[in-house]
């Protein structure tokens, strides 16, 4: 089929599987990191704003492949021999944590100030105001841009090829080296990426429409 053997195509799909695994790692890790970053960025405390701001600026100012290198070789120099999956997972966590933090900061700040005030006037503590009044409203606003960013995460996992992590891009490179059919191989890879990302884009725009209708 297309001049490739079934085994070679299966190999590409195995790579796609690891792309999905790395994407999930990046999203879960990014959520765990992004939530405190968002809180810090939206905080009244200057110190918290500064500390979280440093992380965001660093990550936004360094290309993702370079972050991958730094994490991968950095951990090796520290004397740990980690698989590329761990290094790529940590790098994706840093990357998506910083961006999700910025996105969610905007969502928290998008809830009108009067909602904080209303909670305050009902004698709710600061934590109660955040958990019961602000957070549920911010979450609703956050769904469309978050799902949209998932697409970025999936696509950007392809940078893990620089540390030889076995994902879809890496497996395509390997098959190409064996078959010398770059156009066929990378077109298949492109279609698989698209098949993963397109439904998510669709979902994001549907969430977006629903939010704006209500």
């Amino acid at each position, binding site marked *: 089929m297309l001049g490739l053997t079934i085994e070679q195509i299966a190999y590409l799909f195995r790579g796609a599987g690891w792309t999905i695994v790395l994407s999930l790692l990046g999203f879960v890790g990014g959520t765990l990191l992004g939530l405190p970053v968002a809180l810090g960025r939206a905080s009244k405390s200057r110190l918290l704003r500064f500390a979280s701001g440093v992380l965001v600026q660093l990550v936004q100012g360094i290309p993702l492949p370079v972050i991958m290198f730094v994490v991968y070789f950095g951990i090796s120099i520290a004397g740990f021999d980690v698989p590329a999956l761990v290094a790529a997972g940590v790098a994706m966590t840093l990357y998506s944590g910083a961006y999700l933090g910025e996105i969610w900061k905007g969502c928290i700040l998008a809830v009108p100030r009067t909602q904080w005030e209303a909670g305050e006037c*009902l*004698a709710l503590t600061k934590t109660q105001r955040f958990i019961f009044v602000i957070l549920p409203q911010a979450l609703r606003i956050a769904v469309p841009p978050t799902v949209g960013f998932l697409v970025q995460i999936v696509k950007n996992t392809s940078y893990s090829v620089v540390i030889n992590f076995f994902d879809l891009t890496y497996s395509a490179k390997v098959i190409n080296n064996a078959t010398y059919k770059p156009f066929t191989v990378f077109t298949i890879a492109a279609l698989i990426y698209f098949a993963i990302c397109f439904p998510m884009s669709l979902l994001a725009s549907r969430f977006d429409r629903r939010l704006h209708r209500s």
Partner: protein
Amino acid sequence: MTSPAAPLVRFKNVEKNFGALQVLKGITLDVAPGQVVALIGRSGSGKSTALRCVNGLEMINGGELEVCGRKLHAGKVDLLELRKDVGIVFQSYNLFPHLTVEENITLAPRKVRRIGKAEARDIAAEVLEEVGLSEKAQAYPEQLSGGQQQRVAIARSLAMRPKLILFDEVTSALDPELTGEVLKVIERLAREGMTMMLVTHEMAFARSVANTVVFMHQGRVWETGPGAMLANPVTDELRQFVGSGL
């Protein structure tokens, strides 16, 4: 500390600045339990600021302010404790859009007063009856008219069993018909003896419901008296204000 006759709110030469701008220039004013006090005046006269000082949304810069036995000028006051006693209703309702009417009302009693779910629902039913919206308990704010939302906001305040409720231009965003239904609720609370301070542009309402009308002008209490004073203003400023048809 507060005997029954003692005022719930006592302003004594209260001053408030926003930066270089002095908004309150020495306000003196008492509100006794069961009284309804209407604050009137042009925009910028300081009436809303005075109201917001009462529940600590704004802190005063000079003078003395005592609310429900707490001295707000004496530094450390537990504002959350104060707000259990002092409710406030805003012009823009500020209901929680993600919660039903019932949840809007029960949130604070449950989280702040630690009342059980069943009891909180009983309270919600009771205060909704008070504002005439029993059938809307399961509705969301966006499904209600402005007047209904404002009545829910009043019910939400009542559910905390406050000693005093503040109303900050609560009918200014409503058309005349909806204004009427909200004012009726406030009138009913007045008859039941609730202590209230209200900033309002509804002169007829201030005259008929308030025990005391306070006309504020340029950050000062310019003229004060029973509702009837609006018919016979002493100062030129009040005469002009009443005459301007507001």
